[in-house]
């Protein structure tokens, strides 16, 4: 247990507890115990009430200490660490917010960073104190020190609200031309945030998005994809012209044209592949011509995904989703169904879960593939994992047709008799009662007739009872 371990550790180093923070607390007329000692005390308490007493006492001390006129930056930072600890546990530390703002404004590097961090954790974009930070953010974004710029951009992304965007936007935009990739990347993500908050505020700088998308650094391009994902989702027809570029980027990624830094467990830039596949799925939806441009690269992604790494399956899964989202290609759908089968038969729960989700998508465009996997799916109803069982039920509703209704309903009833978990029974009952689920209604009605014809004691009444 955590508290025992801490206790042992601290018992062994008594000198530390009393003297741990003397360098910081020296000269302070208010005695504040070292942070380790405080943590030790809190962690060793078992009752919530006692914990509250200790933390509240500490917060009172911190409050007094922060109010001292001669407090140093190091002391302020030390106080903020304590406040962060109490904050994450759910205590009200709002008295210290202003100190965080002050440290961000006046602190030097490491202390400034601590101040900014505390601000991003304590405050939110509509908090009144954020107004006090705007000047500081503007100043730091323009600093010649890269760390200052990074801090300011990070703060911008979590603290700037709609009204402040015009005051910050020109500075952020300027950073898109910065020589360091990390700065360009962060600036792009700030724009992404602005675009999500208030699309109109960045409408006039769409050309900057395009420049970011064409950036020579793949990381910056990747960040720009987040913006394009939103743009395309909103109005897919406007961005058809970038399809070819994205296809060729994906092609280059899968044929390992990116620097080795972008490989993860020997898989080339898997997260970037996933993002590209998501964007292509949006572009090709209901667009036959566009989809035909995309089809070849999807086959290539599947063909090149050979390793058994977790993340490879992530890429393959995303590819299956893309294949089912865009205008269908029979050959690709067959591949997709085949891959789905491998997910379904896997021993790994994560893959089986995704297999069920993937099949749900596949059969929406190619219902003929349902039959191949019917028995595998039905077996998933027996899975010990609740998440998998719940997803399986959802899939079974969609798979139901006049041919397989008897098999599926028999299995469902059998399962409902055995299953002790209320939630799943609730799921079945709810789904059968949901008006929009016409497939299941149809299924139940058909089965109902079957049962009556055979004079089987009709168990379906039980469904109503749950």
């Amino acid at each position: 247990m955590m508290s025992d371990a801490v206790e042992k550790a601290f018992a062994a180093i008594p000198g530390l507890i009393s003297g741990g923070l003397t360098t910081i607390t020296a000269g302070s007329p208010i005695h504040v115990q070292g942070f380790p000692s405080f943590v030790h005390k809190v962690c060793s308490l078992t009752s919530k009430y006692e914990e509250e007493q200790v933390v509240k006492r500490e917060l009172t001390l911190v409050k007094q200490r922060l109010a001292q006129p001669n407090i140093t930056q190091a002391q302020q930072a030390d106080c903020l660490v304590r406040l962060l600890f109490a904050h994450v546990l759910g205590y009200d530390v709002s008295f210290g917010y202003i100190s965080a703002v002050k440290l961000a404004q006046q602190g030097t590097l490491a202390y400034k960073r601590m101040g900014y961090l505390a601000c991003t954790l304590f405050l939110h974009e509509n908090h009144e104190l954020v107004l006090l930070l705007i000047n500081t953010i503007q100043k730091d974004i323009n600093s010649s020190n890269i760390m200052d710029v990074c801090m300011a951009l990070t703060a911008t992304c979590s603290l700037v609200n709609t009204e402040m965007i015009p005051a910050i936007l020109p500075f952020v935009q300027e950073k898109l031309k910065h020589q360091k990739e990390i700065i360009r990347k962060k600036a792009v993500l700030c724009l992404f945030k602005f675009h999500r908050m208030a699309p109109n505020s960045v409408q006039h700088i769409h050309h900057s998005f395009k420049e970011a998308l064409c950036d020579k650094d793949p990381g910056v391009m990747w960040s720009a994809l987040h913006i394009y994902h939103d743009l395309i989702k909103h109005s897919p027809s406007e961005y058809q012209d970038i399809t070819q570029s994205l296809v060729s980027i994906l092609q280059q990624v899968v044929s390992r044209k990116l620097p080795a830094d972008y490989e993860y467990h020997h898989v080339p830039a898997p997260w970037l592949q996933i993002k590209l596949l998501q964007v292509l799925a949006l572009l090709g939806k209901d667009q036959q011509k566009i989809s035909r441009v995309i089809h070849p690269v999807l086959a290539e992604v599947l063909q090149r995904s050979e390793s058994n790494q977790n993340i490879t399956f992530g890429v393959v899964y995303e590819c299956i989703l893309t294949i089912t989202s865009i205008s269908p290609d029979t050959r690709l759908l067959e591949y997709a169904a085949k891959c789905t089968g491998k997910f379904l038969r896997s021993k790994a729960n994560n893959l089986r879960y995704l297999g069920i989700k993937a099949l749900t998508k596949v059969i929406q465009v190619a219902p003929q593939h349902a039959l191949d996997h019917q028995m595998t799916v039905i077996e998933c109803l027996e899975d010990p994992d609740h998440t998998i069982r719940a997803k399986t039920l959802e899939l079974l509703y969609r798979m139901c047709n006049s041919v397989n209704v008897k098999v599926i309903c028999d299995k469902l009833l059998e399962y409902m008799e055995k299953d002790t978990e209320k939630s799943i029974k609730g799921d079945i009952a709810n789904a059968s009662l949901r008006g929009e689920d016409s497939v299941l209604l149809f299924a139940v009605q058909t089965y109902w007739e079957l049962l009556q014809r055979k004079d089987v004691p009709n168990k379906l009444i039980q469904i109503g009872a749950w």
Partner: protein
Amino acid sequence: MIKAVLVFNNHGKPRVSKFYQHFPEDTQQQIIRETFHLVSKRDDNVCNFLEGGTRLNSLIGGSDYRLIYRHYATLYFVFCVDSSESELGILDLIQVFVETLDKCFENVCELDLIFHVDKVHYILQEMVMGGMVLETNMTEILTRIEEQSKIEKSEAGIAGAPGRAISAVKEMNLPQKIKDIKLPDLPSIGSLKF
């Protein structure tokens, strides 16, 4: 989008929390409690994904939230995401996060997350920004953190003293390292080639 990154121990005590969408303080605590309630009752051998359920969805205000989590020894690392995120992508992102912490703190343990909560957040800041994935390359993240530490060391260090405490604690070889940091190899499901 990643809505929140939560780290809590087996008793549900939160150690790190970062929300990428604003929620009032008490809602944040409710989300943490509900998340702990949902993941802690699951066996370690079930899948790492969990649909948010009605309560969590109503707290967050949507219908498509999912929890993607990993459980290491005494700690749960949970990412709360919407349906636009790839499950396996996030799962490996958690792994990158934990491996980076492990490199930074040399066998990371729960105490590191408490004493160096600032550093944990700096690492997270390099990986996720505005709820979007920013960087996934561990070497790159570590380089940036080291650059920052250098600057910190050149000044009177904030975390100097707790740092010493940690090294003393480490020497005692406490049984609370995040064990099994290596991913278990996935059972082979054969080549995906056709």
